[in-house]
């Protein structure tokens, strides 16, 4: 396993230049998640309009994997309807649990297939999923409103 497989340039890029970072003032729900084993934290603000992710922003501290993953996720889910977003999230979760057997579906995940290498590092899967799990929670809460 080559480490540059884990740390693809696009990941380091998102880490250094995160997108959708900085929480919007307006939101339907806010969710805060932490990874107790390493202390990484993330907060996301989600707004849905007519069943579509109309605003999704985040803030947090953590490693490049967790931060870049949150950055890419917010870009990816923005403008998608709830069902489309769920498909993307599930696809990403499956990729993380693939133990290196999957390359990820680029049609669904776009740049986020760069995280495929993470699935071979069990301790890092939680990092990559941090933002996605927060979104999942947020989506459930919005739905309940």
């Amino acid at each position: 396993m080559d480490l540059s497989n884990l740390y693809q340039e696009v990941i380091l890029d998102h880490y250094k230049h995160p997108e959708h970072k900085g929480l919007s003032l307006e939101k339907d729900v806010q969710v805060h998640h932490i990874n107790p084993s390493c202390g990484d934290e993330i907060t996301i603000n989600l707004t849905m309009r007519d069943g579509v992710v109309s605003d999704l922003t985040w803030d947090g501290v953590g490693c490049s994997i967790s931060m870049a993953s949150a950055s890419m996720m917010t870009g990816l889910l923005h403008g998608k309807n709830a069902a489309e977003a769920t498909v993307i999230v599930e696809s990403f979760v499956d990729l993380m649990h693939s133990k290196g057997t999957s390359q990820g579906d680029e049609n669904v995940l776009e740049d986020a297939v760069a995280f495929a290498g993470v699935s071979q590092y069990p301790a890092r899967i939680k990092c990559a999923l941090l933002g996605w799990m927060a979104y999942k929670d947020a989506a459930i809460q919005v739905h309940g409103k």
Partner: protein
Amino acid sequence: MTVNPALIRKDFPIFERTVREGKKLVYLDNGATSQKPNSVIEAESDFYRFKNAAVHRGAHQLAEEATEVYEQARDLVASFLGGVSDEIIFTKSATESLNLLAYAIGSAEPSNRFHLAEGDKIVVTEMEHHANLIPWQQLAKRNRATLGWFEVNSEGRLDLSQIESIIDSKTKIVALTHQSNVLGTVNPLQEIVKRAHEVGAIVILDACQSVPHMKINVKELGIDFLAFSGHKALGPTGVGILWGRSEMLADLPPFLFGGSMIETVSMTEATWANPPKRFEAGVPNMAQAVGLGAAVKYLTTIGLESIHDHEMKLTQQLIHGLQSNSDVEIYGPAGCDMRGGVVSFSLANIHPHDLGQFLDSQGIAVRTGHHCAWPLNRKLGVVATTRASVYLYNDSSDIDALLLGVCDAQRFFARA
């Protein structure tokens, strides 16, 4: 005697393996757990192979032999710590040892010397591992006691300037770590023990990070209780020690209830055996106790003073090397006085998790995260750090590898 890591490594089978596609294992995660010499591994497996039976319970030969080696292990640990055998309690870990104390004290009746009443005070420090913080925090809640603590100053040492008001006359318990598992700081016990005993408080020492690495004599330290884990001291997993002064243990109520810790039992009442049995309910972790006996024997043969000297040389080399890297910030004492071989640091722009991952790709095992000391991390203003910790089998090439790895990581993550 000086420590010869090359020779010592021959006793540790794990160094025959490589990691990450053929890389030499540079194991610098000793603060989390130590590797095991053959003599420990074999002591444990020989117990199963040749003597396995329930101790203290049978009149047959296997039970006799099992009891003998189990009690010999107790004797070995006792003399290792400078205590007597009946003061040694086998637990599953330091975590259990500390919880044992917190629960036992918490259940002491008003007539018992350990009784903790509403408004009594428990004192800890800001640098405690969760295992020596949360049990006391929760005990304070249960018994409506208050929790006070010593703060950590900018040098990574305890601020003792308020000792008189922190350890006040209400204080019943002072529980602190001997050596910080994050900062490496070794705490000055004398002053704290003196003050604690002045107000009639007991002193409980979390010696997880000191017992494996320096010569300890419980009598000389003047403390009342001490806890450590076998697995950090070359011993097996699943065994820890609680040492307590005889006269303390004599009055301490039991914690776990079950077989072998009783004197008499009816459906509604029970009375307790004397220590150490009172605190060893059930069939004990016999093979692990025997393994820990072998571990302290191994450590004693090499010599704790030599081990400490060796570790401090490596620590100096490590601190020195890190200091020459302007992107590195070290947490904890910069000098080698009153500190041990645990060095935590951060690297500008590289998260510890990423640094740890990179080092791992080079075969170097360090620990990253909050090291189970969240309040201390918050005080330091960091979410996580990278921690390297040395032991007797490390040598200066391991430190070189780490220092080189840090530089390579900087290059690697700068690439994008």
